[in-house]
């Protein structure tokens, strides 16, 4: 890499002002992105905050229950001894029994914590820091950074002396980080499940992470009541904060001195770290991971055979040439001319004939004739109906009432 990427440091009071124009990016941000390492380290490190819990060792076993053995027409499970209560003779001890102890009861000496190799932990942290400088990853994690002036966002050390939450809030607003805070506030939900009765009532998203350097910085108190915002010293960067849930790309706000300290903390590709004794940043497995660029490069394209043109034997969907004129033309190029000739012939035939003008008088006369016929038909049907009725009356006149019902 010949050119070193540069970053600006912004003034705390004015987001358009830049106090230091071009600072080189610390080498950590060039670390290859290794989600596999981060995922592995995260799943293990996340277990380290667990508190031991266990089931009461005597639970379900505080009986002098004994099996009744065979021959009693009952199952061979141990049964509660004694008499005089419903409980006597009931099954006990088994995991399948009501009021029995659970199978494989949880013991306090379960292995709650996991140790991870130091090098793996450091590589994971370095990758997570690198990911905070990559805009698509921060977007993919779900942070609202559309108004943030720069990623990675570096601000002068003045914010370390903020004591009031109002200062902190105004600072976040100035730098477009408030949108992320608003997201946190609006998506606060009551947790599903029993945990809400055990002190974890709400599920709250993660907002920006503010990283400072000087130990006597007061900004912790200023920022801690802002929902979603976390504050951490750069010497104690935590993977669980840099990649929450194992997902890379937390939105981080660095102070200038914290940003400058990263080179000492993680080292560079020329020098190993001073603080993490002997730690060398991870080197990429592939120096140029841009697959598209490799494929399109001159070196590859020179050696590559020319692309095979796929021979299209037929259309995907068959078109009926008898209905689809274009399909017909493809098969028989003369068809187009034939069609044109046919149209011309029709036109020639009809050229001499005049249009028949409808004679009004003729129309009237024909209509009158029709009406006459219709009327006569009407009369005929009427007469027929009347005749039928007369016949009915004639022959069934005795039962006139009965005739009505027919």
């Amino acid at each position: 890499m010949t050119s070193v990427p540069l970053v600006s440091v912004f003034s705390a009071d004015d987001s358009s002002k830049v106090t230091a124009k071009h600072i080189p990016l610390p080498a950590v941000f060039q670390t290859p992105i290794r989600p596999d390492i981060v995922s592995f380290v995260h799943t293990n490190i996340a277990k380290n905050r667990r508190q031991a819990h266990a089931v009461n060792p005597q639970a379900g076993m505080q009986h002098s229950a004994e099996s009744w053995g065979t021959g009693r027409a009952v199952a061979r499970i141990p049964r509660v001894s004694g008499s005089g209560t419903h409980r006597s003779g009931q099954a006990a001890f088994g995991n399948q029994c009501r009021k029995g102890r659970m199978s494989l009861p949880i013991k306090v000496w379960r292995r709650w914590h996991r140790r991870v190799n130091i090098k793996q932990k450091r590589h994971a942290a370095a990758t997570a820091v690198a990911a905070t400088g990559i805009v698509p990853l921060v977007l993919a994690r779900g942070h609202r950074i559309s108004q943030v002036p720069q990623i990675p966002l570096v601000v002068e050390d003045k914010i370390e002396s903020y004591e009031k939450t109002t200062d902190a809030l105004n600072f976040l607003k100035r730098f477009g980080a408030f949108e992320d805070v608003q997201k946190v506030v609006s998506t606060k939900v009551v947790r599903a499940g029993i945990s809400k009765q055990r002190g974890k009532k709400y599920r709250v998203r993660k907002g920006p992470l503010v990283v400072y350097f000087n130990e006597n910085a007061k900004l912790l108190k200023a920022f801690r009541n802002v929902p979603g915002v976390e504050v951490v010293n750069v010497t104690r960067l935590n993977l669980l904060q840099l990649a929450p849930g194992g997902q890379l790309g937390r939105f981080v706000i660095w102070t200038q001195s914290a940003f400058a300290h990263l080179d000492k903390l993680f080292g560079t590709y020329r020098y190993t770290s001073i603080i993490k004794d002997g730690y060398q940043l991870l080197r990429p497995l592939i120096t140029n991971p841009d697959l598209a660029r490799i494929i399109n490069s001159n070196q590859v394209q020179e050696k590559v055979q020319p692309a095979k043109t796929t021979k299209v034997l037929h259309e995907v969907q068959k078109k009926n040439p008898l209905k689809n004129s274009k399909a017909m033309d493809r098969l028989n190029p003369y068809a187009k001319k034939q069609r044109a000739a046919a149209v011309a012939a029709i036109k020639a035939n009809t050229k001499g004939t005049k249009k028949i003008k409808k004679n009004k008088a003729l129309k009237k006369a024909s209509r009158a004739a029709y009406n006459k016929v219709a009327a006569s038909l009407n009369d005929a049907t009427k007469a027929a109906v009347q005749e039928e009725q007369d016949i009915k009356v004639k022959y069934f006149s005795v039962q006139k009432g009965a005739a009505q019902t027919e």
Partner: protein
Amino acid sequence: MSQSVLWEVVKGNNAFLVKRNGLTLSTDPFNNTGVQTYSSTGFITKNAIGVVPTQSKVNQINNVNLVARKSTKFQQVDRKTKNTQSVYASTLSVKHGIHTASRVIRKRFGTRRLGLQKAALRKLVKLNRANAVRRRNEIAATKAQKK
């Protein structure tokens, strides 16, 4: 950051991913097809164009914003309007509506990435049609109200 590498990180899980009814969809503003695939996911590329609907009033022609993905780390300030643009995207100016918008898209893509270009144009047309229907209804409603 290479698109290939970013895809490997992002394809399993990202904020825009929506899995529903066996479909893998995306709410990525730079994705014009709606389905999450390697080539259509625009926010991991250096240059992509997102066709984004805006809330337009009845008489407003433009219902669509063209958002161009850019890979600079610094925010740019539009000199004329003094509006700060976002770090990862800049809105392309579209003066007169759908035909200028389609010209902007075609000019940006040139002869490259025909599939993506068609997808952007397709979305543009669909949004425009939907907006026409909406405007028609709004106008009818206001007319009815006046009566």
